[in-house]
């Protein structure tokens, strides 16, 4: 009887373990899902879907115009927003492949996709005849935009997760190796580099003579884009990290953190512009957009707030009802947001209403 008692205890242990594994979602290695944001270009919205497709959608109703690959294949998880240049859509995938898709033929422009050694998470940028992309393998790759062949590469310390920004012949990006680089596109070497106290996972923003970026040390840095010298007396500090790429209207920098707050900072001094930061119930991750004198910012719980840039007052809220991590897209008065369940919402910020929504996750 007692042996049975002990066996019952063991059975209970196994049962509880199985139940708790299931209840806590601990059912194996997590798989990447992606958070590619929508990009409105001309009469089309481009985005990577949660099903691993490059989608071209109608901006009037969100219906699908075409998809790549057209057949049942996928490109895997996509975190970067597509980049459109000269009739070609460029898209990086988490498996390290980088695609160039011709919008006319809807087929691959290159004979085969370029393959980086690590995942591609941040946005690429087209500069002249090359496409620049960063990879989590720590390389900044420059590809011939016609053939996809590698032209040159720069090895950084730590993986490159954020999107690239190019200004005046320099590519600016941060790495997980506590570094921020300004790489000269002519010499393919750093014009300067800056040590942060933690990883830099988000993209940078260039405004005037300064480059702005946030880091996991909770600092938002403002550096001189030519020399890398700090512009502000001290970096703006938050309790938790910055992952979001900041946006600017020229005089203020808008950035949200993992402490559920969004700040408006004076671009020259770093001083807060609003009496108090905009509060949300979950961390900010998606890059916000400016439209019609408003700042549209979404927290990761899928709640978008429309904020007066001058005062920081929230004038309208829209909830997607589920998690949202992808960058927002904008075209005129329309803001596009895609939630993690693949639902794309078109919101008119002037009329403060949802225009339509479309399920891109099917």
């Amino acid at each position, binding site marked *: *009887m*007692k*042996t*049975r*008692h*002990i*066996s019952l*205890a*063991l059975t*209970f*242990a*196994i049962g*509880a*373990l199985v139940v*708790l594994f299931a209840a*806590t979602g*601990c059912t*194996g*290695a*997590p*798989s*990447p*899902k992606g*958070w590619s944001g929508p990009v409105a270009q001309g009469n089309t919205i481009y985005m990577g879907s949660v099903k691993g497709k490059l989608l071209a959608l109608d901006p009037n109703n969100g219906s699908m115009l075409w998809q790549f690959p057209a057949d049942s294949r996928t490109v895997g*998880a996509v*975190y970067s927003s597509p980049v459109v240049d000269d009739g070609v859509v460029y898209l990086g995938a988490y498996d390290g492949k980088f695609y160039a898709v011709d919008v006319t033929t809807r087929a691959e422009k290159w004979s085969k996709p370029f393959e980086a050694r690590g995942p591609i*998470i941040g946005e690429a940028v087209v500069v002249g005849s090359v496409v620049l992309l960063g990879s989590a393998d720590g390389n900044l790759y420059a590809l011939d935009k016609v053939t996809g062949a590698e032209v040159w590469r720069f090895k950084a310390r730590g993986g490159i*997760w954020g999107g690239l920004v190019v200004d005046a012949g320099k590519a600016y990006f941060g790495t*997980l190796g*506590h570094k921020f680089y300004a790489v000269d596109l002519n010499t393919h070497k750093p014009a300067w580099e800056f040590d942060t*106290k*933690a*990883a830099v*996972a988000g993209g940078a923003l260039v405004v005037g003579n300064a480059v702005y970026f946030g880091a*996991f*040390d*909770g600092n938002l840095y403002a550096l001189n884009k030519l020399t890398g010298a700090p512009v502000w007396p001290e970096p703006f500090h938050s*309790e*938790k*990290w910055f*992952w979001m790429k900041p946006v600017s209207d020229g005089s203020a920098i808008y950035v949200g953190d*993992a*402490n559920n707050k969004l700040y408006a900072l004076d671009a020259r001094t770093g001083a807060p512009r609003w009496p108090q930061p905009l509060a949300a119930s*979950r*961390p900010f*991750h998606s890059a916000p957009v400016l439209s019609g004198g408003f700042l549209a910012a979404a927290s*990761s719980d899928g709640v978008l707030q429309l904020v007066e840039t001058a005062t920081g007052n929230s004038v309208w809220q829209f909830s997607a009802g589920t998690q949202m*991590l992808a960058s927002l897209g904008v075209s005129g008065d329309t803001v596009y947001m895609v939630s993690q369940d693949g639902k794309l919402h078109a919101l008119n910020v002037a009329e403060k209403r949802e225009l339509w929504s479309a399920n891109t996750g099917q």
Partner: protein
Amino acid sequence: MGDLWNVILLDPLLNGLIVISRAFFDNFGIAIIILTVIVRLLTLPLTLRQLKVSKVMAELQPRMKELQKKHGKEKEKLSSETMKLYKEYGVNPMGCILPMVIQFPIWIALYQSIMLALAATPEALFDLSSHLYPWSLVHSAVPLANQWLWLDLSKPDPVFVMPVLVAASMWVQQKMMTIPSPDPSQSQMNTMMQTMMPLMFGFLTLSFPSGLAIYWVASNIIGIVIQYFVTGWGTLKIPTKIPTPWVRTPQPAKAPAAATPTSTPAVVEKREQDGTTGDKRQDGRRSNRTRPTTTRGQPRPDRNRSRKQR
């Protein structure tokens, strides 16, 4: 409830794990092992209590069998006699389940903290942010370096060493834990459990991040060590040259024990009247109470031989 879980268990373990990793030169593999050791040491009193109660229960098996034979048809009588026996030996029948139940949340939180800290995907790294303390030491450490030995700790072991280690260490621990049962059906069930559990965990390790496999192996090895010092090798067959600290060799009883008359050899010494199941003596030394009382006072051949040698 979720917030309470995070505040009390998950977040302290997670941040502790990251701090340890930072202290050990960003070596996350070592950090997992160290945190597992710390947690197992903190829960050691509970583990010991559980093992000791299990041990006493095992020792009471012959008495229980006797009672079953005697009162098998009278359920109420059997129940009251069983309870009397428990009381006599200071055993709480819930004594081996309760410590296990208390430890479960801690193990699950440790498991979750390792999974979170591994941040195997960008989404997982994002989720991590809401669990981190606002300490610069913690923030500067993430994302953690996932490379350790031949392993990418956020991915399954490509050469399948970890699944084998998990299964083997779990099998040894299971084998040591299992209490031999005179009931053939129970014995069959035990054998099945001994085989199925290691196989199941070995199979899970094929798809789980190898960082978690390190936790399982470390935890199993610590469990084996604790088990060894409390109950010996159990049903695990070990070459005789390796000493077992605690386990008796079954011997036929020459005379019934005074306090609890029985003809079976596995009778245990009566527990102290205060109801504790510990093995404390006034002189602070361990008592060899698992040896049948009837053998006490008899000369031990090996001891005599060593004296002569001196």
